[in-house]
Each structure stands twice: as structure tokens, then as C-alpha cells.
């Protein structure tokens, strides 16, 4: 089983970190994982993105060409990557910033008011965690427990409070899609 995902947004939305958490959690679960960032030139206001693969088998190309899921944090990201998602794939998009739906009929779109949910979680900078929570609920790429362990490792120097506020935002995202009827497809 291979979970491949592209996370894309503008700089500062935490897409690279959210991607690393998936890879870290997958590693904790004993899976093969790879994470690769975009490092090409990008204009101001453009997209930063990373690709993550979590698999039971060794990972070939770490570059995710046709992701099983897309986490689009802003409109340019949705426009850039919507077309690349595999048939039947997931498109989770930040409806706080993206005022349109998913154009493709052969993917499953989930709008998420990620900015508002992050504020509700008491963590306005936690948009990435909200999006990540929704993704984990819908894909099962990794367990939430291993994400917590990954957070504890990455934020070891920042203390347990930082782990808790991020977990809170993550669970907001998870619950936001729990029981939601699929749109699109």
C-alpha cells in the first residue's frame, strides 16, 4: 500500500513541516517513507510544496508525480496540482482562502475552513495541522498516535504545550471531515 500526497501552499503556512510529520510518523510505524520539497525558483506569493510517500514497500522515485491526495492550502496550489491527482484521489482544500470547488469530477473534494478551525483550536498558526488532521482521517496514511510522537520529537525543545496545541488543531481537522458526505465524484 502506497500513500502519496502533495502538500502545497504559500510560504509560512507550514506545508513543509506538515509533510515532514507524515514522513516522521510513517517512519515511527516502520513504513518506508520519503519526503521531498520543491526547491525551484518561485515568485513571491507563489507556492511552496512538498511530496510525501508512505509505503509498505521501498519507495522508487521520491518525487510525487501523481499524488493519491492533494492538500491545497491556497488557490494557486489547487490550480497547479488539481490536474495531477490520480483518478479517485483526494483533494482537501482550504476553503478559508479558496472560494471555488474542485473542477475535476473524478476526484473527491473536501473543503475545509482550515483557518477558522485553527483559530477555534486556539492555534491560529495551526492551519497546517487542521489540514493534516483531515488528511489522516480520510486516508489513514498514518495513525494519530505516531503523529503525536513525531511532534514530541520535532518540538522536543519547545515543550509539551506546543505539542498539545498542535494536536488540538489536528483533531479539529480530523473531526471536521468525520462523517462528512463526499463531495464531487
Amino acid at each position, binding site marked *: 500500500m502506497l500513500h502519496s500526497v502533495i502538500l502545497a501552499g504559500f510560504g509560512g503556512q507550514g506545508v513543509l513541516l506538515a509533510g515532514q510529520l507524515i514522513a516522521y510518523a510513517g517512519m515511527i510505524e516502520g513504513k518506508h517513507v520519503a519526503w*521531498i520539497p520543491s*526547491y525551484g525558483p518561485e515568485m513571491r506569493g507563489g507556492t511552496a510544496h512538498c511530496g510525501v510517500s508512505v509505503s509498505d514497500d521501498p519507495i522508487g522515485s521520491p518525487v510525487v508525480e501523481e499524488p493519491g491526495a492533494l492538500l491545497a492550502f491556497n488557490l494557486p496550489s489547487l490550480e497547479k496540482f488539481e490536474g495531477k491527482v490520480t483518478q479517485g484521489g483526494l483533494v482537501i482544500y482550504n476553503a478559508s482562502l479558496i472560494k471555488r470547488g474542485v473542477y475535476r469530477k473524478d476526484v473527491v473534494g473536501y473543503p475545509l475552513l482550515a483557518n477558522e478551525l485553527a483559530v477555534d483550536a486556539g492555534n491560529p498558526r495551526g492551519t497546517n495541522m487542521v489540514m493534516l488532521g483531515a488528511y489522516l482521517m480520510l486516508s489513514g496514511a498514518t495513525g494519530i498516535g505516531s503523529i503525536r510522537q513525531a511532534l514530541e520529537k520535532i518540538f522536543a525543545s519547545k515543550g509539551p504545550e506546543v505539542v498539545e496545541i498542535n494536536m488540538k488543531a489536528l483533531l479539529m481537522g480530523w473531526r471536521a471531515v468525520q462523517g462528512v458526505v463526499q463531495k464531487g465524484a
Partner: protein
Amino acid sequence: MKVLMKGNEALAEAAIRAGCRLFFGYPITPQNEIPEYLARRMPEVGGTFLQAESEVAAINMVYGAAGTGQRVMTSSSGPGISLKQEGISFLAGAELPCVIVNMMRGGPGLGSIQASQSDYFQATKGGGHGDYRIIVLAPGSVQELADMTVWAFELAEKYTTPVMILGDGTMGQMMEPVDLDTIPIKTGHSEFPWATTGCKDRPKRIINSLYLDATMLERHNQKLQRKYRLISEELPRAEAYHTDDAELVLVAFGTAARIARGAVDQGRANGLRLGLVRPITLWPFPGEFLLAATTGARKLLVVEMNTGQMVEDVRLVVEGRIPVHFHGRCGGMLPTVKDILAQIEEMGV
């Protein structure tokens, strides 16, 4: 314990563990995490990190430091490695050990900053002027990048020669689990009978690559060639994957080999008898290994992130015995499993 690290950072930490205390470099994407990491780590371990004024200066600092017998490294990518070729030729001529990292990007010229394998010729055929070779290692994962860095220092000292680690932008930028605890920590440096360490109470030692007397230079070249022959006998290394019953064997190194392996798995799932040979040393090229692993194959397909470079070495090895086909992407584009399998279908297994 496994940690998640970028290839560039894992390589840099492995160099520290291998006892490298001197790094001279000049920035270039996509290898900047190597100098960035070492700029922080070298002072912590009592080493020296120096950002030189140019690549030419950096490789000559490596030349000087290598002459003292200490472990020294530099890293760059395509255009920067071109600038270093003069110094690499001097290091090879003077028979000095050092490690040079090339995280390849697309060329020619400034090209792009995306991953490529277009420096295969430059790395394996000498690169600079004169009749010389350097050992070239091709890592296939972040773990291998780390392990290979240690191996590179050992080989450099064993054969008193520059060793190049030939990665690419993808390999340097990606994060994968890596266990660095398995790498023993080396402190201090070995004593060498050639190192220039101050000649108080002993005869002078001279490190040089200048031989104005033709007979002397011919003799020096013959000595170098004897060493290269020994390396060619002792060192070639490659990995075979499902070659036992393969009718078509793919040949690929580095990132291209990871993609080719994916093609082998998917092809086999569809009933195609595919195999893969992955050269780990690019010079010396593992020709005998390739021959032995492809005795039953009817066709070979070389997959590279360039327009066809290693394929020439493969053709030299098989000498027309079996047809050798080529699949390549370049300019920073990567081959895909889908395209490889489409070509295989067109070729017919």
C-alpha cells in the same frame, strides 16, 4: 536510532563521524545544506569550515589540506564541479586523498537546479586534464549517502586518490529515515608516509604533480595506471535485483535506479520478467558483474537522467552480445515507471 534527515545533511553528519574536520566549499543549489550543516557542526567538533571566494579556491584549499594527511571534503554541483576540475586533476596527479561531492543538476552551462545525472561522463572519464581516473560512487538512498561518505574517505586513503560521491538534487533534497549510530566515530587522523606535516628530525617530503622530465612523467603515469588497474580489480560493486530469470534487464544508478526498480516491480506484477542491475561504483564500472547478471537476458535497457552517458559503458561491456536500448529524461525531468514500461512494451521483452 533512525531519524528523518535530508540527504545533504546525512552526508554532512556522516563526514563528521568519519573524522573529516576540514571543509572548503562555495555555495550552489541543490547541495547548500551540506555547507550550511557543516558551518554549524565543524566549530562544535574543533574543525574548520571555510566558505572560499570561489570553487577554484576551495578545491585548492582541499589540495593543501589533503597534503597534510587529514580528512578533507568539498561539495558542489555541476557548474561548481567544472570549476574544480583543474584542482581535481592536481589532486589525482599528486595522489592525494579527499572526498568531493557532486549533487548533480541539469546542464550544460548554468542549466537548472533540478536533479540530473548529466555529469556521468565528467565524473567517470577523468574530468580534468591528464591521464587519470577518480573513484566515483553512486548512492541510492539517504542511508547509502551516509554510509558511502565513510567508505569514500576510507577508499581515498587506501588508494591515495580523490573519491567523488555522485548524487543528484533529488538525493540531496529528499528526507528519508537514516541510522547514523551504526557509523563508528573516528577521531584524530592516520599517519601517512607522504604527508607534509613538518620535517623536523626527518627527511623532506614533497607533494607535486610537475614532472618536467618526460621519462619521469611517463614513469609516474605508469605508476598511476598500475594503481587504477588494482582499483578496477578490487573495487567494482553493483547490486542485482531479480536478474536470475530476467529476460530484460534494466541498468540504472542513483535516483534513476530507484525508479527503474519500481518499473521492475510493476512489470513483474504484470507478468514481465524484468530485472535490474544498479552500479554502485561508476568508476570502476562493474562490467564483470553486469555480464554475469545478464547472461540469460535477451535485451538491456539503460535508464538515465541524461541523454545517454552510462549506456556507452554498458555497450562497451556487452560488446554487441545483446541489444542495449536507452531511456532517458534530462534537464531536471525524471523518468517515470509508466514511460519506462511503455518503452519496454514497444521493445517487446
